[in-house]
């Protein structure tokens, strides 16, 4: 329930900011109208016209929407639009809360957009920040929330109440930089393998600023992290759509170029058990994973 209210709040904020920053940005033009050309999108819809159900295909290629008179209600598992067309007819459109339906683009297309955005802003902003350390004599973990029993919405301070920013505690400093984007940091950029649809990955250099630029309304995203030795995992959870991006940094060491892996648009509502228990059943089916000769007894 709390998450729902937060989501609605974030949504309102999202649209207000979006509109005030750019009057031309319009969700109907950018998201809904392109989606209505897709049969896949239409197959997921429930549509009502003046309160009565109609076949979703009746909306195919419809474009005469009143671009100012609409509302969107986003719940954990559904997205509902209420719209009026230029003839004054009221429509309600309901579909599952799935990022590809909301954006009208699939994972591959969204990944291409995201990587271009990160690369573009990298070229604009890449520069080495001046060194700015805080003493790291002690570490106090401030945990705001936990998730899945392993991830924390957290940041780190020293005994003096200063945020940790130290080359001896790089994972903690990275988390602080992601949590507090407006604070100075000694960290500048890292090398990222951006994993893409089709078992491809693209090596790019990313600054902390450019990564945040890739996540619109960055302050509304939830940042979850887990640290184990020189391994850092960060999830960037979208404020109201059911997906997150994941950043993994490995072998974090003083003097090394930070190298990471980035996975994007991972759904976070379609799994039941991430750690399901293995049960040894009858073992009827033999699979040869080396020579790949399989047989069913």
């Amino acid at each position, binding site marked *: 329930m709390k998450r729902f209210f937060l989501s609605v709040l974030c949504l309102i904020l999202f649209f207000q900011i979006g509109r005030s920053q750019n009057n031309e940005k319009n969700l109907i033009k950018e998201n809904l109208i392109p989606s209505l050309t*897709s*049969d*896949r999108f239409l197959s997921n819809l429930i549509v009502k016209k003046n309160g009565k159900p109609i076949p979703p295909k009746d909306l195919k290629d419809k474009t005469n929407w009143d671009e100012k008179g609409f509302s969107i209600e986003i719940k954990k598992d559904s997205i509902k639009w209420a719209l009026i067309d230029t003839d004054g007819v009221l429509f309600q459109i309901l579909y*599952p809360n799935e990022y590809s339906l909301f954006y009208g683009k*699939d*994972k*591959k297309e969204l990944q291409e957009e995201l990587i271009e955005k990160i690369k573009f802003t990298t070229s604009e902003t890449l520069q080495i920040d001046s060194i700015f350390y805080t*003493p790291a*004599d*002690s*570490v106090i*973990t401030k945990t705001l929330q936990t998730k*899945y029993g*392993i991830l924390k919405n957290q940041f780190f301070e020293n*005994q*003096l109440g200063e945020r940790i920013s130290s080359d*001896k*505690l790089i994972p*903690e400093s990275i988390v602080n930089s992601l949590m507090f984007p407006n604070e100075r940091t000694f960290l500048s950029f890292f090398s990222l393998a951006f994993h893409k*649809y*089709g*078992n491809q990955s693209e090596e790019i250099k990313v600054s902390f600023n450019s990564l945040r630029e890739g996540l619109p309304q960055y302050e509304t995203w939830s940042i979850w992290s*887990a*640290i*184990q*030795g020189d391994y850092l*995992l960060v*999830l960037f959870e979208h404020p109201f759509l059911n997906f997150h991006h*994941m950043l*993994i940094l490995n072998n*974090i*060491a003083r003097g*090394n170029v930070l190298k990471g892996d980035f*996975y994007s648009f*991972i*759904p*976070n509502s*379609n*799994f*039941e058990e*991430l*750690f*399901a228990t*293995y*049960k*040894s*059943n009858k*073992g*009827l*089916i*033999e*699979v*040869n*994973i*080396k*020579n*790949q*000769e*399989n047989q*069913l007894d």
Partner: protein
Amino acid sequence: MTRSYTPRIILTQLFLFFSFISFGQSQTKVLFSNSDKGQMELQIEQSLNNVLLEFNSAFKASRTPKLQNQKVTPEGAARILKIWENASFFSSETLINENLLQTTEESTFGKGYQVRNIKLTVKGKDGTIRSKNAVINFNSSGLIEELYFGIELQDYNAVKGDKQNPIEFGRRQVILDVIENFKTAYNRKDYDFINNIFSDNALIIVGKTIKQAQLSDFGRLDQKKVELTVKTKQQYLETLQKVFATNSFIDVDFEKINIMKHPKYPQVYGVNLKQSWTSSNYSDQGYLFLMIDFRDEKKPVIHVRSWQPFKDTPSEEVIELGDFKINN
């Protein structure tokens, strides 16, 4: 919430209070449980004993620790005294059994040694008392270079099964990513993606509902039964190509994903999920099982895909990882 935590808080405070009044014993003995007692290990053990004794004495006398005669670098001493200005501390333990860790040049800490989880009772400037775990770093000459209070114990001693292991958690997220790509490939009718992700001799199992007529005392009864057939990758792809060609759109959705790891082959995972298939001229729901091999992390492959009709398959008959005997 307040009620359930209150007794625990009181007990903790009582424990700390008794630690506080009984620390007069002052001496804490450190023994490295993994050490072969070389000269350096013995020196570090002794240095740590001495410095803890000095912390205890300083705390008892309400004074600043005297570190000039201890095996502490000048920088290390300055750091410790800076912490002491804000919070004094002592050890109430009589015996500390911990591992002496060696840190490499490339590590975050530089070349040297490290001891973690040294339990100290810390008194803040405002009088609050807390139990915290300290980390002490030694340089390669065995001198104390740094003391700081580490992240909570459970973060470093976390490997109590996969559920508490961030690396394993990350792997499961990568599996969700692969599954999402797999789903996207069907929606895009991306034949090449599907061709590439299946291993050359992948096992494809397809369940089909058949009706069996049976005679009983009450007459003729129709019973539904799911018959499994095996196809080669080539046969499956040929069928799929026809499906792609004859449907203007395909909408595949996955839900209720369960991921399990093979106990003998930890890079082989089984994924069970419920698949909903909608296309221009056909729709169904089924149990989907995939065996995914991550031995090449950059290029995971699917060795097994099984599909069983949702409606007619009892849950105990759903194919899963434990049904397979893997030969490698």
